[in-house]
């Protein structure tokens, strides 16, 4: 008697689970026999879709804040107009995103914008750390594979001045993004810190 009840409960539970998952029918549906067939419907995906930042020192998920520290740099490197720093970089990596992307996606667009601020007219990122009335002369400049400045305002996919897309094959791909300090006029007299909070958007088109 107890055994029959346990069997009933077992089949009952399994059937209920399947029905809830597949047809969202009532939880109170019952079988009238002790046996029934169960149909399973599933799919094995290639893995969890993730987008990750990485550099030589850190890794992080895109949903968290990814921190890049530019180090301590003597002001004397930036006293002249149009001074540029050494290239830094991070890598954006898509893993196993075929289920989340339209079929046959070959690339995803990336855009970078300052949070609570605006890009300069030539598409650079201003210093948002306002120290003692500093004039925010230091900027971040992204650099293309040819070593030339990128205009983050540009959306023309065919232009080398546009932040390049991430090539994607079977839902995975990565690209390295280079950037550096730039100042058109020379570093501001009171500028002793750089800070910028950025939003990175990865989109299909």
């Amino acid at each position, binding site marked *: 008697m107890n055994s029959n009840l346990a069997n009933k409960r077992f089949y009952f539970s399994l059937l209920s689970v399947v029905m809830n*998952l597949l047809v969202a029918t009532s939880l109170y549906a019952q079988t009238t026999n002790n046996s029934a067939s169960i149909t399973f419907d599933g799919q094995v995906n290639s893995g969890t879709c993730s987008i990750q930042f990485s550099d030589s020192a850190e890794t992080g998920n895109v949903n968290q804040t990814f921190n890049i520290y530019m180090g301590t740099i003597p002001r004397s490197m930036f006293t002249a107009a149009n001074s540029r720093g050494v290239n830094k970089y991070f890598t954006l990596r898509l893993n196993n995103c075929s289920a989340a992307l339209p079929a046959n996606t070959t690339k995803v667009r990336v855009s970078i914008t300052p949070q609570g601020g605006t890009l300069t007219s030539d598409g650079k990122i201003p210093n948002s750390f306002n120290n003692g009335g500093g004039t925010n002369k230091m900027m971040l400049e992204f650099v293309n594979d040819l070593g030339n400045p990128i205009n983050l305002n540009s959306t023309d996919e065919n232009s080398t001045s546009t932040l390049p897309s991430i090539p994607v094959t079977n839902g995975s791909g990565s690209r390295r993004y280079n950037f550096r300090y730039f100042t058109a006029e020379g570093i501001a007299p009171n500028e002793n810190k750089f800070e910028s909070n950025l939003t990175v958007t990865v989109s299909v088109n």
Partner: protein
Amino acid sequence: MMKDTVMLQIRYALYILLMCSGFMNSYAQTFPYTGAMKVTGDFTTNTCKVSTRVNGANSSLTIIIPPVTDTDLNQGDGFSPLAASARTFSIAVSECQGNNYKVNVFFDVSSNLVDNRGHLKNTTSAGSNAVLQILNESNNPVLLTPVSNQGTSSSTYTNVQTGYEPRTVNTGEIAEFVFKVRYSRPETGNATPGRVTAVLPFYLNYQ
């Protein structure tokens, strides 16, 4: 009894549904993604002190290399033996006022200072025709050859890499970039006796 059974199946069903819900979210994410990145850095009025060292002690910028005979140089691989006649020297970075200085050394030569193999030419007229090879601490040759300019077809002898990664230097710390120098036969022919002098410009880059 019937009520218990129904409650049981509700618990099972909810449990499984929650599990499935979590699994679905883990791969069925939608684009566009938005993420946050924070970039920070510090600027300082201080620079670090750069010095050259020989055998761990501060030395003048002139480094005396032990002499070698032309006979020794003209046999074997054409280089003076590392153990006997190479001179180890270092470029040291110290007295940084603050933390997190990230520094690296680059050589900054020009075509008149080096030969086609990336060795330093002798600047003493009427001296030996021997040249000097630079090696890093791991005894790997540092070739003073042109570096291509990004985005152009030209190349220059500036920014010649030394094989070292940038090093972080904090207050009170010293970073030493260790090199060795030794004689080499010229590109063609045997080395001739005479004085050998050479210049190796370098610079320190803060990164």
